[in-house]
């Protein structure tokens, strides 16, 4: 699964730490998400989409192998 967290974060001029604080996870978790090493739970995905004021589908998209 790929995501556009880094792009959305740049649009909002937000650091990884800012986003981490807003969704209640560690900065390392946001870093892992951006690099595609960690797939978030539904709750975390919804929290992230809430911060960026978009739908989950716009941030997280499935790839062929998923």
């Amino acid at each position, binding site marked *: 699964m790929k995501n556009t967290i880094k792009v959305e974060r740049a649009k909002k001029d937000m650091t990884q730490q800012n986003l981490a604080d807003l969704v209640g996870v*560690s900065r*390392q*978790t946001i870093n892992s998400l951006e690099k595609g*090493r960690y797939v978030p*739970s539904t709750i975390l995905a919804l929290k992230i989409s809430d911060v960026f004021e978009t739908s989950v589908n716009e941030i997280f998209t499935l790839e062929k192998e998923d």
Partner: protein
Amino acid sequence: MKNNNVYLKLIPHYYRKWIYLLFLLPVTFLILKETEIINMMEHSSKALFSVLFFLPLMLVVFTAEKVEDERIEKIRMQAFGITCLFAFTYLLIMKIFDLLSTNENLENITANELVLQMIIFYLINKFIMLRKG
């Protein structure tokens, strides 16, 4: 939405520095034993040292990280799983080695040694997984 995932109840991160201080207990005990301030039977002193050493190690294993989130929980569970697999494999290899060996002086691994190896394996494993992300 209510998060109904069942997580381990952990010791708050705040207590970690106090737990690290507990590591001074086995060190102090060793110093006191070497300087012969404490005079104990070999067997009793080994048992007491094990208790003093295991206690802070076990507490470290069950202490929460600074920011406890779902990724860390997943890593913790993975590390526990891999550690169990390591222990089973280790015991199996030791048993096979024991069966094949003709050396009668070969000592069986004690529960203490196995638990200590499991804790160290778990901590290294978790550390590597956290670094790798």
